[in-house]
């Protein structure tokens, strides 16, 4: 048994060594993708384009506008002269936020009456709008507080200030709310999924197309031995590719790694088993490379979109959360983000590790069974 597996593994490695173009094809595109996606995947919001309509022209109105200008999150792109221009700027997506201050703003503010300026936000992208609103609220409520304190000083001179409860946020593991720290490990997990599923499914299907699979089938090799003989070399290649992409991404984007590298290595190995299982399973269902391509597309996109890479699983409806139980990437994201940023070990990650192991074994077993059928 081991002799036959050894021979198959040897054959795969020989084949890879002779395919010089493959080395380029396997390494360069993932590295480019790592860099591009690392930059692209962010929910952070800077330089929100803002238009201003100031009909009051008072010190107060200028003060409020200047706080937006100096905050760093907003960039004032235009000064509107009338409400129509504000509407046009937002309609044409030239501005995401508009600050509209009516005449009489300062006067009402001084009298202690509510003097609402209007802040219009384009809600088309709800997430950007929500975050922009958060920054708007920070600026406006700070300003309101200062105005209120001024007012209180004048109205209730000599009395203690009104009681105030404030909040003291302590962001753990990522003190600057840096989006890259969250997404770069996620991109590593994604690229591993795409690379390894494509690699394995295409390799086996190509053998079927070229006809070398028939040659293997007439040898005394058993399905389990065949699957193992394919798994071992692709596991090694997958691990090397993941290490390459992870190393490049971590160094380029300067992502901290606070955990235990061996925990990550264990998690990555278990993840690779499941991902290889998916690739092999696809290859047993498809008879041509074109089919394999379409099936990969069909399988990879939902796996990745529903993994918690960017859309939080806790916001999904209950039955979708149940479905994520069979998604290996969901577990691996917890493992890779946990080891990179939180530095947690097996004591915390054991449920994810065992789930990955179970999924890997199940998927590989299924491809052994399917392969036996396709031998007929």
């Amino acid at each position, binding site marked *: 048994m081991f002799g036959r597996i050894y021979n198959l593994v040897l054959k795969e490695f020989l084949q890879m060594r002779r395919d010089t*173009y493959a080395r380029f094809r396997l390494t360069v*595109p993932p590295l480019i993708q790592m860099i591009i*996606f690392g*930059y*692209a995947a*962010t*929910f*952070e*919001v800077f330089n929100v384009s803002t238009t201003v309509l100031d009909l009051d022209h008072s010190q107060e109105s200028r003060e409020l506008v200047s706080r937006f200008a100096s905050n760093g999150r907003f960039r004032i792109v235009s000064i509107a002269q009338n409400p129509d221009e504000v509407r046009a700027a937002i*309609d044409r997506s030239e501005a995401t936020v508009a600050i509209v201050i009516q005449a009489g703003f300062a006067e009402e503010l001084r009298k*202690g009456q*509510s003097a609402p300026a*209007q*802040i*219009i*936000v384009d*809600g*088309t*992208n*709800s*997430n950007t709008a*929500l*975050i922009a*609103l*958060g920054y708007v609220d920070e600026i406006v409520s700070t300003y*309101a507080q200062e105005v209120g304190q001024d*007012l209180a000083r004048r109205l209730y001179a000599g009395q203690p200030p*009104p*009681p105030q409860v*404030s*909040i*003291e*946020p*302590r*962001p*753990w593991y*990522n003190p600057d*709310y840096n989006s890259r720290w*969250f997404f770069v490990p996620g991109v590593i997990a994604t690229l591993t999924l795409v690379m390894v599923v*494509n690699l394995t499914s295409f390799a086996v299907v190509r053998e079927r*197309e070229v006809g070398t699979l028939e040659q293997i089938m007439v040898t005394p090799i058993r399905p389990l031995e065949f699957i193992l003989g394919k798994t071992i070399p692709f596991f090694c290649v997958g691990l090397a590719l993941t290490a390459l992409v992870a190393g490049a991404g971590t160094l380029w984007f300067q992502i901290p790694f606070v955990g235990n590298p061996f925990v990550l290595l264990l998690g990555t190995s278990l993840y690779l088993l499941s991902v290889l299982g998916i690739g092999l399973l696809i290859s047993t269902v498809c008879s*041509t490379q*074109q089919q394999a*391509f*379409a099936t990969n*597309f*069909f399988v990879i*996109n*939902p796996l990745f979109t*529903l993994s918690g890479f960017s*859309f*939080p699983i*806790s*916001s*999904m409806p209950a039955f*979708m959360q149940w*479905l994520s139980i069979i998604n290996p990437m969901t577990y691996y994201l917890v493992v890779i*983000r946990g080891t990179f*940023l939180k530095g*947690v070990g097996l004591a915390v990650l054991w449920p994810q590790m065992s789930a990955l192991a179970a999924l890997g074994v199940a998927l590989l077993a299924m491809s052994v069974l399917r392969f036996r059928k396709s031998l007929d």
Partner: protein
Amino acid sequence: MNLRRVRAIARKEIIQVWRDPRSLMIVLLMPLMQMALLGYGVNLDIKHVPICVFDREGSQQSQSLMKAFQASPYFQIVEADRDYEAVKRAIDGGRCKMAVVVPPDFSQDLAATNSASVQTILDATDDNTANIARGYAQAVVETFSNDVQTQRLQSMGQQQPNPPAVAEYRVWFNEDLESRDFVIPGIVAMVLALVGAQLTSLTISREWERGTMEVLVSTPVTRMELMAGKILPYFFIGMLDAALCLTIAVFWFEAPFRGAVLTLFVTTSLFLVVVLGVGYFISASIRSQVGASQIALLVTMLPTTLLSGFAFPIDQMPPPVQAVTYLVHSRYYVTILKAIFLKGSGLSDLVWPIAALAAYALVVGILASRAFRKTLG
């Protein structure tokens, strides 16, 4: 180009599809399934953030603050802890995204110095959720603070001063800030990209599988004619799929639709041509030119989600990456769909993305017709 030959190929394809009800079922059911999966799963709304509370004081005032958090629809208290170790375990294990810690001298401080603070520990590994949760927590505490102020003033028999409201907020186009409204059009684009790839990939694959490739190569049909004849029937199936997806988006997921059906029809057909062309290109070149097909694969698979502006705003990307997004076909369709759905834009507003899609269709058409080699080697 000989239209008779195009028609012959198209007719042959239609007969083939018709006689293979299983693959027809797949082609019609698949977009349904993907729409359901992604439509329910893709959601950026942050509600019911799981939090834990650690009340170190246990006074009446600290309890009422906890109640305020409990009442907020944005938070869900999943555990109450008794020490920092438990808080750390809950956050490390991912059970809680935030912890509210009330200091032991909270109400004393508030009474004596008129100012007190509440600590919120955030799991900032997910910076977006953390940032938004912080905003919600801020709002809860602000309301609480105002209530305390009102009570104090009332007990002193004073009138409450007018709260200095400085600004009011208006959200346009998506008043409730539902992420669904802006995500659903993007999902339609993604599903159509998937379906297009699936549809055309089968057509060439089938010829190889059944051994009819030899026959096809020996006919006088040219590469252009073959491509046109193969894409045409799938264009109609694709339009059916598109209608299905868009119907689900509007009637099932209730995405607001403010544009004109004609605009939608024109742009969707254009996008479908591009998507089918890319699918045809990949399947025609996958055997002979592994490199070219790999590049096409790379351009379609992940960028459809990551670089199309579907989830991540393109204007927040660094300029070189923004330049790369111009190569992604779904970028234009996502822009178009969002504009038609949410802003009700018409054809005249969408001249640029439509022109870009048309140019894309042209380039893909030329590449795809050339990718098919009339050889068996």
